[in-house]
């Protein structure tokens, strides 16, 4: 057996400190008591799909107009967008969305700063 093998195999074994297992279990229990974060990444595509379906249900006009002719899909889309913009303007959704985004950014920034300090 080589010198290197002999030295590196006969490695000194260290014994974990007495409170090690307890410290691990404490951190495990802290972990379990912490609420599970909402899986936004996984849920986002589904949520977007739901929103789109809802928007489509509310704003998409019937496929056949009053004269009994089928409307072109591009016309449907244009009408849908117009209706959506109109709704946004009427209910000031842009301001609502802006304030929600600002609030979210503030919370996120504070959380990041707090975790950095920790």
């Amino acid at each position, binding site marked *: 057996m*080589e010198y*290197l*093998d002999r030295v*590196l*195999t*006969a*490695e000194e074994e*260290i014994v974990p400190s007495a409170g*090690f297992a307890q410290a691990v279990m404490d*951190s495990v229990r802290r972990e379990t008591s912490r609420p599970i974060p909402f899986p936004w990444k996984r849920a986002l595509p589904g949520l977007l799909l739901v929103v789109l379906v809802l928007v489509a249900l509310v704003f998409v006009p019937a496929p056949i107009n009053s004269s009994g002719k089928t409307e072109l899909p591009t016309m449907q889309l244009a009408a849908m967008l117009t209706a959506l913009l109109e709704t946004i303007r009427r209910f000031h959704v842009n301001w609502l969305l802006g304030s929600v985004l600002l609030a979210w950014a503030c919370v996120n920034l504070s959380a990041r700063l707090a975790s950095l300090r920790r």
Partner: protein
Amino acid sequence: MQPTLQLTRSYLLRSVELRVSASEDEADVEKVLAGEVSAFESIVRRWQGPLVNLAYRFCRDRSRAEEMAQDAFLRAYRGLGQWRKDAAFSTWLFAVATNLYRSQLRRIPAQTISIEDVARVQVSSPADGCLAEVDRDHAVRKAVLTLPAKYREAVILFYFHDMDIAAAARSLALPEGTVKARLSRGREMLRQKLQRQFRMSRWREA
């Protein structure tokens, strides 16, 4: 001849221990997954020694080794459901721990002394100018940390697993051939460095 026999005996003893603990591990994991968090304590008590020792070989700092091992247990706890039982629990646990130790040391490297510093200790040692055998062995172990990461990891895991290349490869999630090549290169680098610094002519023994 004697060290080889000792190594074989310790290897056999360890493999028997591993087989006994495998069934206990599986039962405890089942309990934890069923919601019995306290069952994880048995896993921690069973594997705290190996995980702390593995971490210690990576960083040579006792308190940091415990912190790293604690993080490894926490990560194992979080990912317990990902253990697919196609390999022993210990294999999976070592792979999780090794992965964590590697990434932690990449972020904050272990405090090492250079080979040159090791040599300086030699020069300042008394009388015949040679390090005492214990000090020299200690310096050799510390010198492993001066190797580039990929060679260092292969060397550490190989000796941690009692010179079992397959086990080292599983822990590193690398093919055996890669580990063998890295190990060979790492050992050669280590040998050259130490030979140069200690001017030792007797590296090989029958």
